[in-house]
Structure formats: structure tokens, C-alpha cells
């Protein structure tokens, strides 16, 4: 299936999202509140359900967080990226998709560990790598005077 066709199909099921051709793969940008619904729509997309969540991660843009979901359909081998912005950095909450892809449970734990984004309805939201009182190291404003030696640029 061509990318344009796929994008049309996605636009049909996710009318509230912005579907565009990213630098490599089709991108779907949805509001953070609609993330779970959009994910479910993609997971059950007609003809080519995106059943394989390759990757889930986030990035800190100092004024907002963006969460990324890379998913592939194992039938058509198309890859799409689902994105959502979380504006509230101090109290970042987004709904979990671990009920759709079980692997997201662990990706979300990692994102929570490193960014401090909370996932609503997550079955077991604990820190994955770090201690409970450690900061959220992948936030851009994270400072650790003890352990990190800044290199002169």
C-alpha cells in the first residue's frame, strides 16, 4: 500500500489527528488526551492492523514533552509514527497504551523513569533503572552535580 493511501486511511479513522509524511515515515500527530483512542484505532486498522509496537519513547523540548510511538503492521510492513505533545511539563500525564500492546508497559516504565511522564491506568508504574529518589535524567533541565562531569565544548 502506498503511503498516501495509508495516510488517507488513517485520516479516516483518526479525524482529529494531523497526518503527514514525515522525514521518513508517515506521522500522525494527535492531542495527548486522544492518544489512547488513536492508538486503539491504529492497532485495529482495517486491512493492516499496526500490531507490533516497535518503539515508544519521549523527548523533552523544554516547553513540552513529545511522546513517540513507532509501530509496524506485521502484514503490510508499513511503519507509522504516532506523536503527541504534552504541554504540562510539571505534571505530565498521558494515558497508557499497555492494554493495547503489552510491550508498552515496559517502554512506559522506562519513559516514566527517565522523563517523569506518568501514565494513567498503567498496571505497574515503577521506576525501571534508577532509584526512587533520583531525578528524571533525560529532562533537559536535569542537573546532577555529583556524578556528571560536564565536558567543555
Amino acid at each position: 500500500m502506498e503511503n498516501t493511501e495509508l495516510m488517507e486511511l488513517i485520516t479516516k479513522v483518526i479525524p482529529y489527528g494531523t497526518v503527514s509524511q514525515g522525514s521518513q515515515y508517515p506521522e500522525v500527530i494527535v492531542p495527548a488526551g486522544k492518544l489512547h483512542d488513536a492508538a486503539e484505532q491504529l492497532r485495529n486498522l482495517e486491512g493492516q492492523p499496526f500490531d507490533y509496537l516497535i518503539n515508544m519513547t519521549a523527548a523533552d523540548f523544554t516547553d513540552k514533552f513529545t511522546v513517540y510511538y513507532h509501530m509496524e503492521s506485521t502484514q503490510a510492513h508499513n511503519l507509522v509514527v504516532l506523536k503527541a505533545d504534552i504541554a504540562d511539563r510539571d505534571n505530565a500525564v498521558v494515558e497508557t497504551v499497555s492494554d493495547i500492546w503489552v510491550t508498552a508497559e515496559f517502554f512506559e516504565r522506562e519513559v516514566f523513569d527517565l522523563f517523569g511522564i506518568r501514565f494513567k491506568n498503567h498496571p505497574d508504574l515503577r521506576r525501571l533503572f534508577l532509584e526512587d529518589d533520583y531525578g528524571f535524567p533525560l529532562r533537559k533541565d536535569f542537573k546532577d552535580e555529583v556524578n556528571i562531569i560536564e565536558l567543555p565544548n
Partner: protein
Amino acid sequence: MSKDVIKNIIVKDDEDYIINMGPQHPSTHGVLRLEVCLNGEIVKYVIPHIGYIHRGIEKMCEADTYKQIIHLTDRMDYLSAHMNNEAVCLAVENALQVEVPERVQYIRAILDELNRLASHQLWWSAFGMDLGALTTFFYGLRDREKILAIFEESFGSRLLHSFNTPGGLMHDVHPNFQKHILEFVKYFRKKLPDYKNLLTDNVIFHNRTKGVGVMSPETAIAFGVTGPSGRGSGFACDVRKVAPYGVYDQLDFKQVLYSEGDSFARYQVRMDEMEESLNLLEQLVAKMPSEGDFTAKMKPIIKLPEGEYYERVETARGELGVFIVSKGEKYPYRMRFRSPNFSNLFVLNTLSKGLKIADLVAISGSLDLVLPDIDR
């Protein structure tokens, strides 16, 4: 379809008989801690605890140039160091739309396969040891030594050879490179029957692995279990076939798929992949241009255009993804590695539930986990 969702079920009880396997345990290859709940010999649930060697590679990448990132990726999955390098290089090259010389692509593919072979050999050794056949460890390492000697000759180091650089390679390969590879292929073909007699055909080995830790294709997809572990369940996830990179679309090889999904199927996938890799090596050496540049022209300071880039390669353990968010600077704004072992590890609970503690060892061995890759 979403009604029969696969879940990771853990039911805790106050009277659980908890036993910790790891972080210092002979069968967790690395510092993995498994919190195992037992009922006699039967496993009730397994909770993996990771993070003992979390080095924050993703954070470190944010302060490194793209050339400097390469040497960090070696240290994630140290057994497929070359593939990790290649993933970053491919991401950078694709973002910059650099045409990499053909010779480089062939050399990279050769190194991929050599690295895959070395990794599978080590896995075979360690898997035998997990099951109590200590001799396999020495035979596997003996043969792996030959590959490491080839690496050492060309790159100067045996395990962590940061040999790739965005745009090409650090050096040209050693003049004896092709000759030694062909010698190795011949040598290893002769040794494979030993592997078969020692483990593959062994009746005890069959009993220990057949029907143990059966993973359905749905489970594999839902957990994102890729690589040989996923292909043992019939999940066609070989990135070399699904989304070919380098010269893989010009090569004749097949994706090894087994449908049983048990530990023995995962074992068989890797054994078949070893032979497949040997075939590939012969093809690659024959097709490889004997002359040519070893690197494309690159600017001394590499700056990726603003945007998001995602690149996938097939490592010895599954699909490695490199995700770069660039803001047009010489450092990546956000770098993310989707490591195959991360997803492969967490299926352990589902697979080993209701089986015996010895099976847990067999399953974790058959998943072929490398801990530094999980923790990053």
C-alpha cells in the same frame, strides 16, 4: 482483535516463596535480577529487575558528536557491536542523504554476518552451559576465536571495534580479510556436525527444550520479541528482509522461521542462521569489489538537518532501532535506542509461568539476553 489482548500477568501473594536469581548468579548472563516466586519447583511468576549497569548512554549521546556516539553504541550490545555502529551510521547517512561506496556496504554486510556468527557461537556455548553441558562452552569459544582473530587483524580490537564511522569505515580492511574469511567458513562448516552431535540431536537436550516456554506468534508480536527468539515463533521480523538496508536486498538468503515457538525452535533458528550466515559470507566475499573507497566524503563536523530520524537494523538478537531528534546542531537533541533485548526480556514471565525453575534457566538462555543492551 483487540479483545484477546495478551497481558503480562503477575498475581502476588503475601505467602509467596520468593527466591532471587541474580544479580550475581551463574545463569543470568550479566547483572540481571530475577525475582522468582516458587511453589516447590514450579515457577509462579518472574519479575525481572534491571538497571544494575545503566550507564545513561542516551543522555551521554546528547553531549557527543555523531562520530563520538559510535563508540558508545559498541558498549550496548557488545556481542553485536558492529550492527549497533551500523545503525547509527545508517541513520546519519540516510538523514544526510550520503551515498556510501559499494565496497563499504559489502564490508559492512560481511562484518554483520561475522558478528552474528560470533554472537550465535557464544550463545550456543552459554546455552549449553545453562543446561549443564559445560563442554559446549569451550567448543563454542574455540571457534569464535577464529572470528575474533579476523576482527583483530583488520580493526585492531576483538570485541568493541568502533570500525564504522558516518559515511564509511575507519580504515580499509586488511589485505588478508577475504582469504581468512573463506578459511574460517571452511573451518566452521567442518565443526558444525560436532555442534549437532553434542547438543542438537541429544535426547536430554530435546527433553529440556522441546515444548518448554512456548511462545505463540501473537505473544511474540505483542511483546515485540524480535530476532531469532521471535522467528522461532513464526514472527517474520528479520529487518534484513522486511526493510532491507545496505546490500541485503541483493543477496540470496532466506529468513529462518520456525513455528513451534519453544526453546528448541529458538535454538534451531540460531543454528540455521549460522549456516545461513556462512552462505551469506561466501556470497559477499565473492561479490565484494576489490577496489574502492572505504569512506564517502563527509564534512569534518556532521550536522543533521532538523527533524526526526528512525533507522532499524537486525542485530544478532533482534531489531535495533535508532531514533534521533535533531535540531540541526552537531549534537543530537535526543537519541534513543530501541534495544531488542529490552523487549525480549519481559516476555520471560509469560513464558516460564507454571514451568520448573530449570526451565526458567533454559528459557532465559534461549532468549539470548545481553544485559548491557537492556540497561543502556
